[in-house]
Every structure is written in structure tokens, then in C-alpha cells.
């Protein structure tokens, strides 16, 4: 059941993005930025934690989860350390994804040659 929910949720959000891409002049860059902001906004409304509880990795594998982790760790930082905590804690949860992408992409681009 969990697997079906993850499949349906991730698929539905990707299909919705495809509708935006096909029917407007927005580029993939616009849509990923839009989804990130949307994730932060859903997190602001308190929905995203419930989405993760319900759809599991179907919700965490999407780019909107990046916005959610930014917002939730910034708010966590405010609760713990006050205003400065927003700055010091902002990237706390998303650090893994950013560092992972940097390290892996760097290694891969050093090892392989670009193909045209």
C-alpha cells in the first residue's frame, strides 16, 4: 500500500509539472524553482510533514522536499538559537543532498570525458 501511495504521489506531481511545461513558456529551470518554493510554502502551512508521513519516499525524492528541508531547518534554528539560528541552521537538513551532489558530480566530471 505504501508503495502504491509513493508511486501515485510522485507520478502525479511529475505529471502536473509536465502539464505546466507543455502549456506555458516556462522552462524546466522555472518549474524546479517553482516546486522548491512550493515545497517551502507547503512546509510553512504545515502540510509537508503530513505528506511525508503519508507518501513516504514518494514525497522526499521530489525537489519540493528541498524547500521543505530548508524551511523546517530554518524554523528549527530560530526556535533553538533565535534570529541568528535562521542563518546558522538554514542548510542543516539539506546539507547531505548539496554535499552529495557536489562530491559525486565533481568526481564523475573529473573521471569521465564529455560526450557530444
Amino acid at each position, binding site marked *: 500500500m505504501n508503495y502504491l501511495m509513493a508511486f501515485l504521489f*510522485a*507520478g502525479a506531481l511529475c505529471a502536473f509539472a509536465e502539464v505546466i511545461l507543455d502549456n506555458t513558456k516556462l522552462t524546466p529551470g522555472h518549474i524546479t524553482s517553482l516546486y522548491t518554493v512550493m515545497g517551502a*510554502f507547503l512546509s510553512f502551512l504545515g502540510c509537508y510533514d503530513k505528506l511525508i508521513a503519508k507518501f513516504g519516499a*514518494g514525497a522526499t525524492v521530489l525537489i519540493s522536499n528541498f524547500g521543505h528541508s530548508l524551511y523546517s531547518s530554518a524554523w528549527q534554528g530560530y526556535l533553538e538559537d533565535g534570529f541568528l539560528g535562521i542563518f546558522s541552521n*538554514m*542548510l542543516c537538513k539539506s546539507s547531505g543532498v548539496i554535499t552529495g551532489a557536489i562530491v559525486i*558530480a*565533481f568526481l564523475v566530471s573529473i573521471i569521465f570525458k564529455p560526450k557530444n
Partner: protein
Amino acid sequence: MLVKKHTPREPKLRNFGVAFLVGGLIGLLAEVISMILKNCFAFSTVEAGLIVALIVIGVASLFTALGFFDSWVSKCKCGLIIPTTGFAHSVSSSALEYKRDGLITGLGSNFFKLAGSVILYGIISAFLLVIVRLVIGG
């Protein structure tokens, strides 16, 4: 008019179906891997999420470097762009593309060329939303 008439029509319905299937499969796979990690290797939910994200990023970067991920992305479009694969693909494809301009002026300065907007607007929106929540006293 002439250009509009001769531009091939995008098969919107097929794009929709492909994006749904591919995006859904990635979600399903991520859920399967995280369930295996949690149940068989006793990782916590947070650790399992990070490992899944790293696996997804690793596979997407490797496939980009091997040269066949670009054609997959142009076929599946949003099915691969919206999951974390899109983020990894944009970082590694710009790293590979600008490598020949040098390690600093090419690879270094163009590394976040495409992914930069996601990080920038993510942080700006998260910051503003925290400020809003402070002001309304949530």
C-alpha cells in the same frame, strides 16, 4: 503563421503519461530502497532518506557522465526533472560540459549554473517564510 503551422505538435497526452509513469517509478523505487534500509539494516528514517537521496544522485550523475541520461531527460522530461535526479543531472551535466574551459574558470564557475536558481530561490523563500511566521506570531 508558416512557422507555427510547420512546428511539430508536442504529443501532450503521451508526455503526461510518460512523466507520470517515470516519476511514479522513481518514487516507488525510493520507497522500496528506504523500506529495505529501515527493515533489514535498522537505519532510522532520516538516515535512510539521506542514503536514498545519495543513491539517486549517484545513479543520475553516473548515467549523465556515461552519456545516455541526456536523451532520457529529453524523452521523459518532468518525470526525471522533478525528482532529485533532475538536480543531480543539472549539476553534473554543467560540470562535464564546461570542464574543457579549465578547472576554475570552466568547471568551478559553471558548476551551479542550472541548479543555482533552485538553491537561491529555495533559501530566499524559506527565509522570507520564517520572517512571515515570526511577524504573524505562529
